């Protein structure tokens, strides 16, 4: 083994951990950003900035173990949102160091979980018209519950209940075979 091999092995192991950390945390960071920022580009930038800061903290040893990862990251989110975006130069410097984690095809912020389209199509077709409309307005048109309620002539509380029940149904439904399988 050469003099740098063990360091390279350790570095490789650490990189895997960094990717894993980013993959795990990215959806949570995206949710945090979506609640506060309207533009999709701003959300993407915020997610990337937070994950870059997390990677930097892992490298610098400021996050010692997985236990500290969640609290540290929500802390970064809150600080970053309160203090405003970092300067472009600061972000570019971090991207220069850790940009390999965000290369095309290996972006840790997307694709952690996906469902088979055919299963989701089958599940969606089993929803009531109201349930389908509520989910479409929420997920595709980004309407608030108040806007959905006004658009469909429903009470806002009713929209909240439909939304909750429909997501629970879809979440469970996509785990099962399509409804025709039992009848073949």
């Amino acid at each position: 083994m050469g003099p740098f091999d063990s360091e390279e092995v350790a570095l490789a192991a650490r990189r895997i951990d960094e990717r894993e950390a980013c993959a795990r945390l990215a959806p949570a960071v995206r949710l945090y950003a979506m609640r506060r920022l309207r533009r999709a580009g701003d959300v993407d930038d915020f997610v990337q900035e937070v994950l870059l800061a997390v990677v930097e903290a892992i490298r610098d040893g400021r996050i010692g173990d997985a236990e500290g990862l969640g609290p540290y990251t929500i802390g970064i989110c809150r600080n970053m949102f309160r203090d405003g975006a970092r300067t472009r130069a600061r972000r570019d410097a971090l991207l220069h160091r850790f940009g390999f984690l965000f290369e095309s095809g290996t972006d840790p912020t997307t694709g952690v979980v996906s469902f088979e389209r055919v299963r989701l199509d089958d599940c969606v077709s089993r929803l009531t018209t109201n349930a389908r409309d509520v989910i479409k307005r929420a997920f595709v048109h980004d309407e608030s519950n108040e806007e959905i309620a006004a658009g469909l002539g429903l009470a806002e509380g009713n929209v909240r209940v439909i939304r909750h029940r429909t997501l629970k149904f879809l979440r469970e439904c996509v785990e099962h075979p399509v409804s025709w399988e039992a009848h073949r």
Partner: protein
Amino acid sequence: MSRVPVTVEAIDAYASGTIEDPDAFEDALFDAAARGDTQAAEYFALRDGVRELVRRGTYDVVVTSAEAVAIERSGLRTTRIDAPLHADSGGGEVDTSADILLIRVELPLDDVSRLDVEMLAGTTLVKTIDDVRFDPREGAIYMACEGQLALATRGTGLRHRFVSIESAGRRVLREIGFDDVVEREP
């Protein structure tokens, strides 16, 4: 470790601004994510999946004629079955590798105010699509589904029953099978 439950439904409540204690939920959300919990990723998978179905035109099972034309012009590979009013079966040559299957069904829609579509495997009701959209002036509805889902109905004796829901009860407008459909392998 937080005891606030992190579920897809709770995440949606957080995202839509209706969760009771967002700060406590955020602590639980990030704690769960750091430990490898995938609920937030599943939430986005559902959200992105719904968006994808809407983009492809298959989110709503029954579409307007204008939407059917848009699907055919979308660049996705479509295949089509036609069911003229007096035929017992939908007919046509369908491409089994198509992305989307479109079915045009002629129906006597005069005096119909609410239309349900029932899907049967032989005589067994598999699912009901309630209160579908239609324009009675067109005398037909268009159904759109993912090609792979259509293939999943092979060998099930698939039948579609179209039911007018009226104050006096149900009135079956039409029931069709697909015995006359010819499959074309790519």
